[in-house]
């Protein structure tokens, strides 16, 4: 199971805890949207390769 965690803002402690539980034992990638110029093409390559994408707040 390939999981992609995308962050729209800096994760809170609760978000970090949920990510930890959901990600345990899975093949995990992450992507930070909370930057000045996100590489959307690179994001999509990861989305297409993942079985599930979660866009955290």
């Amino acid at each position, binding site marked *: 199971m390939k999981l992609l965690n995308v962050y729209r*803002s800096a994760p*809170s402690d*609760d978000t970090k*805890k*949920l990510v930890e539980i959901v990600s345990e034992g899975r093949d995990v990638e992450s992507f930070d949207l909370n930057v000045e110029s996100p590489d959307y093409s690179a994001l999509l390559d990861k989305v297409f390769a993942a079985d599930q994408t*979660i866009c955290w*707040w």
Partner: protein
Amino acid sequence: MSKKVGFLLVNKEYTLDGIRSTLGLAVENMYSYAYVMNNELPDLSDYHKENIEWVRDMEGEVYSTVDANVENHGMVKITLEEIGKQLRDLEIIIPYGILRSDKS
């Protein structure tokens, strides 16, 4: 096979609409769950109470980490860790709206 979806509702300004969206997917024949985290809801209108009841009638559920929501609105008590474990079984996870840093 019906998909399983979960709405994570952390912001008081978004929670009631998130429950409406939860119902919206329940009526689309999905298993739809709402998780109200760290925000206490005020008195609910009949419309919003019915939305919660309908989610339940359609084999979904509205959970909350907040005791007042459990006592006042009949939501099912859940911890953050339990939410995390449930999310592992869902196909679609929806961190809804925007995050608010305070825990009011």
